[in-house]
């Protein structure tokens, strides 16, 4: 008896197999990292190497939801696009009703709730994405949330999802410090992703949100500088740990 066909059927040991399989789809997606600093947030994603004929500007892995909220994801790109479109509409709908910028946790809960709704009715499949939502509230509070295909939601100080996320999370757990300034947060995020990504600033895309300043995509020149710093640091540490002959 296979219990993994229908979404709305539990297996005897209490699992919804379709959701588990959706998580598998997420595990195969390119890695995404979110790190929270003292007054900044960094979203960092692994970018597939650009194919020659493709206009890489149109392939976005970090999606802007509103001026103060960005979303990175791992998993099925098209599903993330649909979720982001709904989140954008909800953000404007909130502004229309309350005239305030949408709170980050409200939007994160909305996305998580959307993902959960697709796990409970028949005829639909779950969204095959985990999203990392980074946003700055109007009062300076900044937070990172992660949602999963099951509709789970949690707030994180630093998180990774997608391919090789275990390695990245281990690195973050060992090295994360909560009061890092803008530069250090950026370096932490890039370095954690470089644990699993082939060297090169060309394979990484980074968005930085800072208190009081507009959010920005980190330029390639600056990224190359940061990557170089990270590589130098790594070399120094390796040479220190190398056993003396």
């Amino acid at each position, binding site marked *: 008896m296979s219990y993994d066909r229908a979404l709305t059927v539990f297996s005897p040991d209490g699992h919804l197999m379709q959701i588990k399989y959706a998580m598998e789809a997420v595990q195969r997606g390119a890695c995404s990292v979110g790190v929270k600093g003292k007054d900044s947030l960094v979203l960092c994603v692994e970018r597939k190497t650009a194919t020659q004929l493709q206009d890489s500007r149109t392939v976005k892995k970090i999606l*802007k*939801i*509103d001026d103060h909220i960005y979303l990175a994801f791992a998993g099925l790109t098209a599903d993330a696009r649909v979720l*982001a*479109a709904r989140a*954008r*509409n909800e*953000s*404007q*709908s909130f*502004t*229309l009703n309350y*005239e305030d910028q949408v709170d980050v946790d409200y939007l994160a809960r909305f996305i998580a709730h959307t993902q959960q709704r697709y796990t409970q009715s028949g005829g639909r499949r779950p969204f095959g994405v985990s999203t990392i939502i980074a946003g700055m509230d109007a009062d300076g509070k900044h937070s990172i949330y992660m949602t999963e295909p099951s509709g789970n939601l949690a707030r994180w100080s630093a998180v990774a999802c997608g391919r090789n996320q275990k390695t990245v999370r281990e690195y973050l757990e060992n090295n994360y410090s909560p009061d890092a300034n803008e530069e250090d947060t950026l370096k932490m995020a890039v370095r954690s992703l470089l644990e699993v990504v082939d060297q090169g600033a060309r394979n990484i895309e980074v968005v930085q949100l800072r208190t009081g300043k507009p959010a920005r995509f980190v330029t390639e020149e600056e990224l190359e500088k940061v990557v170089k710093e990270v590589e130098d640091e790594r070399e120094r540490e390796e040479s220190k740990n190398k056993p003396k002959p």
Partner: protein
Amino acid sequence: SKATVSVLYWKPYTYNMETAIGICLDDHIVLACSGNTAFYYMVLTDREDKLVQLDDNKLVAATGEQGGRVALLQYIKCAMKPAMIQKGVQNTTKAVANFMRQTLAGGLRSRGGAYPVNCLLGGFDKQESQINDGTYGPSLFWMDYMGAMQKLDYGTHGYGGSFVTACLDRHYKKNMTQEESVALMKTCIKTVHTRLTMSSGQFVIKVIDKNGVRLVEE
């Protein structure tokens, strides 16, 4: 079968002594709107800012009943944003104007009647990227509550507009500097104060140029 009660109530549009003025020059736009807001015979405020900023460089000078006017402009502001965020590029003024016109026209045979709003939409399009359709520079669109829309060099709404149009017919030149055009706007406003029986309150004047929107201090 469900018993339904439907009430059809159509309220005719009445002009209410507000004046909106817009002047479009080579490299900037000046918009002004009277500040008077009244409830029947009682003045609520002398200086309401009816120049609503839709985004970095688009401004709408709107006249009409406050409830409908504010609701429509808030809706336009929020409705344009998701597509703009997804594209990554600002909408052109022409696109916003057409969307507004569509919304105004759509209200004619639905929702109990037209939105009670006459407005002037001014915007400055920057040369952003290849995705833009090539429009650059300022444009001014005149719209009325029935969904008529026209791109103009200068336009007005309201009773005071009759006097201002004559003034602009005489003095408007396309290549005026910002000082000259603001001075011309102030002349037009003086005309309104002089010739209109009811008070227009204090006008609010704003200028849109390539740097964005700025308020002109009295």
